[in-house]
């Protein structure tokens, strides 16, 4: 049995310790907002916060998250009111949407660590892939969210 703190709630799961956190979130806890895109820590679709830091949950064994604070897209705000979510809606960032949970989690962590990121800071932090090519708006929305935060 592994004890997790997910979105402020204690969850107990009976899984292999090496199972990646992503598949515990999606298939054991039903938190399907976090997405699978590559499984090798390259695309960022599976990004969640571990103690406030963005991590790629497809490549993090659940045992490494035991007892730590995990926040997923479902727990970022109760009502889509996080400044990043608001900027995302206002600037109409998403296209297919599949990468966007990960993008938003990565952007929220960036702004928490750096309240006024430059284009270069954004380029360095935002390595999540978006096949739809929404990068222009992701960049703009992070600036907008930083101003609003």
């Amino acid at each position: 049995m592994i004890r997790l703190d997910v979105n402020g709630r204690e969850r107990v799961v009976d899984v292999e310790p090496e199972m990646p956190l992503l598949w515990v979130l999606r298939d054991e806890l039903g938190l399907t907002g976090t997405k699978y895109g590559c499984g090798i820590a390259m695309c960022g679709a599976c990004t969640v916060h571990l103690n406030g830091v963005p991590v790629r949950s497809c490549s993090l064994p659940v045992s490494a998250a035991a007892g730590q604070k995990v926040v997923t897209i479902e727990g970022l705000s109760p009502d889509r009111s996080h400044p990043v979510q608001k900027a995302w809606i206002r600037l109409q960032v998403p296209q297919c949407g599949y990468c966007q949970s990960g993008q938003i989690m990565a952007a929220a962590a960036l702004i928490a660590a750096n309240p006024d990121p430059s284009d270069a800071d954004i380029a360095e932090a935002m390595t999540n892939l978006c096949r739809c090519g929404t990068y222009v708006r992701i960049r703009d929305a992070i600036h907008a969210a930083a101003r609003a935060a």
Partner: protein
Amino acid sequence: MRHDDTVAKGMRGVKAVVATDDWVAVVADNWWRANQALKTVKIDWDGGKAASVDDASIKAFLRTGLDATDVPVARKDGDVAAAFAGAAKIVEAEYWAPFLNHVTLEPQTATARITADGVEVWVGTQNGETAIAAASEASGVPLDRTIVHKMHAGGGFGRRGLFNEYTKQAIALAQKFPGTPVRLQWSREEDMVQGRYRPVSLVRQRAALDADGRWIGWQVRQAEPSLAAGVLPQFLKDGIDQVGTRVFSDMPYAVPNYALEYAMRNTHVLLGPWRAVAHTHNPFFRECFIDELAHAVGKDPVAFRRPLLANKPKDLAVLDAVAKAVGWGTPAPQGLHRGIAVSDSYGSYSAAAVEIAVKDGTVIEVKRVIVALDPGHVVHPDAVKAQIESGAVWALSAAMLEEINIQGGAVVQRNFSDYPVLALAQTPKVESILMPSGGFWGGVGEPPMAAIGPALGNAIFAATGKRVRTLPLKHAGFSYA
């Protein structure tokens, strides 16, 4: 194909291993467990005759199409032989583009449930009609008892329309568990090797120019596998792929003597419509070649095109618009270099200007992309701009980075580690010029892409004097900042 699933069957959470003639799947209570179990299944693939096919053999096969004498002619204007006989200058070049994968960020997936009442499918699809037809056919359930729930697709780009193999597979799995929904999720690796790829293409172009630098003759020979032959038979006519020849068959330039020849060279590699289809590589071939001609006769690339487009006001208007926006005709800012191209497609007119910097002679940094688009009408300008931004990322990604290779008859690439796609750090400023001229309705999802790749290739020539004729650009020795 033979397989051994002894280990997989005993693994935690595994409910079934299902095998057919050409695939094996593991059903489990958790996707990671299913995938771990699948990795233990030993499979002996039978590649058949395709097992000896690789990049080199495909290229050699396409090359036979360049020299064949018995190929159909897709378009013929004037007298090409006479134009070449009287030419003061002849320019000839060969261009190449590779197979590409869609790599939708969500690998293919579908969920199916079979009950006594019928079959129900949940799938992200670009085409509900082919999805429901495939579901009915695969399950043997009549259409009136087949339900397809169209889910948000995690990217389509042409991958999730005509092909429903993942839906059929999900149904085959669900048939083993009546009443229970079964969700099939391909791994990224499966998605990479079971794509429906943008065709490879080899094109030779020859141009005849007279003593005054006027373009009097043009001969284009395309050698490529046909998408239509595989999946869109309604677009196949007299041995000519009516989709694959676009950009050349409908080219707008007033060249009096013109011949387009099409040598179909089909391989076993499965093909699909990849966002913008022929308007991904054909505009690169055509518009970079025209840039070559302008330079060959010492003319400015915009000034060279303008009289040839005199009777095509819409093409001319978008070309002029990006030229003006980028400051064509005035020196580029220090360290920057410009390229330009124009291409109509899907009922719309678009042109692009690209500004780049080049570090150490080989490292390309795209600073600015400007696209002008005339789709007739614009209903929702912000959505059209989003498509232009998205199209810029696609076009740059394909030109700079993407390539599917074939070895032993199979796809070499496995994941984003060996099939890189454009990232935010590589994305330039994108400026949209919307100029709807009214009177018609053209597309906006694909047309913005067409001119960007060649504008980039032409900017690289302006910067380095090096002409890129093989995609992606790494084959010409360039890398991407």
